[in-house]
């Protein structure tokens, strides 16, 4: 873990200090009893102590080994993982406009093709599975999935 522990430990300690200071501004209960700020203040203190503990442990052990994030994985797989993240962001931003069906088809085809499924099978599975999932959730379980561009047909 090395330098990452120092880095994460410091981030945790700083976040804890912020939580503690922010929670100190919360009001008290009537009669001077501690209010909604007490519990987060305790959590803030625990964050600071454990953050120091993690960073301090790495410093004491002189564990300075630095590995760039995700360096154990091949770059093609890292791009695939990035694609998964982008697919969800893409879904959040465009599902209202395009609707569930086009979004799901695009996501399934793109991810399957990118991870090694042939283009023909990616298209067949992408369309077929999207329709099956849509029927299951929207028609049978009544989850109000976005209709988007199909709002006059669905």
């Amino acid at each position, binding site marked *: 873990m090395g330098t990452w522990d120092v880095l*994460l430990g410091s981030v945790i300690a700083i976040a804890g200090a912020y939580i503690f200071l922010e929670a100190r501004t919360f009001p008290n209960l009537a009669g001077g009893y501690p209010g909604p700020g007490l519990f987060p203040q305790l959590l803030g203190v625990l964050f600071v102590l454990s953050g120091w503990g993690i960073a301090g442990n790495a410093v004491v052990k002189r564990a300075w080994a630095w590995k760039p994030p995700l360096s154990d994985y091949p770059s093609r797989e890292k791009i*695939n993982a990035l694609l*998964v*993240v982008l697919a969800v962001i893409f879904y959040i931003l465009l599902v209202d406009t395009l609707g569930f069906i086009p979004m799901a088809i695009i996501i*399934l085809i793109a*991810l399957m093709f990118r991870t090694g499924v042939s283009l023909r099978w990616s298209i067949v599975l992408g369309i077929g599975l999207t329709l099956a999932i849509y029927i299951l959730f929207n028609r049978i379980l009544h989850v109000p999935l976005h209709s988007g561009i199909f709002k006059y047909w669905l």
Partner: protein
Amino acid sequence: MLDIILQSLASLADPTVIAVILLATFYGLFIGAMPGLTVTMAVALFVPFAFFLDPVPALAAIVTLQAMGIFAGDIPGALLRMPGTPASAAYTDDSYALSQQGQARLVLGVDVIASALGGLMGAVALIVGASALAEFALTFSSYEFFWLALLGLSTTAFIATASPIKGLVAVVLGLFLSTVGIDITLGFQRFTFGNPNLLGGISFIPAMIGLFGVSEVLRIVLRGKMHLAYAKLEKGASFLPAIGTVWRYRLNALRGGIVGLITGVLPGAGADIGAWLAYGVSKRFSKEPEKYGRGSMEVVVEAGVANNSDLAAEWIPTLVFGIPGDAFTAVVIGILMLKGLRPGPAILHDYTNILIAIYVTFILANLLMVPFGFAAIRASSHLLRVPRNVLMPIILLMCIIGAYAINNDVFDVGLMLVMGLLGVLLEANGFPVAPIVLALVLGPLLEQSFMISLIKSEGDLTLFFSRPVATILGTLTLVVWILPLVPLAKKLITARQV
């Protein structure tokens, strides 16, 4: 009472419930058999279905998929040396070594029988224990609930993780996330940053789907191995030899069952802890400890019984106190709340019929495990051949729908993604993620019981130990805190002596 039992049995005999149980059987066996896909993820993805089912079929499905999934986790353990679920990890090396010695079919048969046996032991403990504890728990005050919640969180932080300090960070993170939203005492907004979507707090199910579903998809995509090479099953019968083997190690089975029950009842310790503990106990008392890790059948029996007996026992604190045994039962609490059922001491009186249906399903699921388990062994080569590059995008889509369906809000899909990325970051740096979920569920109970106790005692912390049960629970919690310091103290003493 007889009326209620008959009513519960009738509700389980409903064709919809039977169909749901059968579907949950296949779903649990499939997810459990796929390396990397956990039973916790399976139940998180089941939530949108549970949303639209009545309480009895929803809970029957969860019980079934849990039992089947934990057993099926043994299949890739034996054939690939990759445990399907963390609960199978303890004896994966032994199962795989036995497979390499040409006993794959036998070891998987033993897994089925040991799992079913463990599950039935757990079911009996649940039936007896839940009723007895529910009466007892009615006398609990805020002090007992505070200590019980803290004990569960302390166990998961300090005992159930490799690094206690990182386990503590995970617990504190989960507790912090539980404070987001409107505070119940004054209606004050905490850490919402002006975002109206956060007023109701961090939605538990999308967070859970992110931590266990999306992060798993990302990890599998990062590893990149989409087709797996697996050991072949030899031909021949396995049912009678498996029964014979379990009978030969019957004392191990009994001891494993007891260890599983104890860890199951302890809030915060999951089936994986039960299996590891049973492994340690088994090795300690074995006449052939040198075989452990190299193909010991007795540990497969003992730990296999332990992780399944643990499952049903975990439901005791979950149902009676509203305190989950592990991340899986944390989701169960979420689903119970979703169905309008409040877990707690009153559950025995308020929802007797549902409770009896859960008991019966536990027995039914473990009996069904025998035929379906052997069928799954036969189909295992087909199960393991399912390409993960087809499966992963489907799971991602199910995660998106699952997160969205809770509040029909795309904000929850974003929350799911953030939690998924957080899960990958934390696990890559040695932080466990299961304690986050447990703390997120237990946070409100812990804070509420802490505040009530503090106001009742007018700030006098000694009153937290004023009642007998509170004293026992408080002492146990302190012991759990001190345990990680013991090796450190030993090191210091040895260093001084040198």
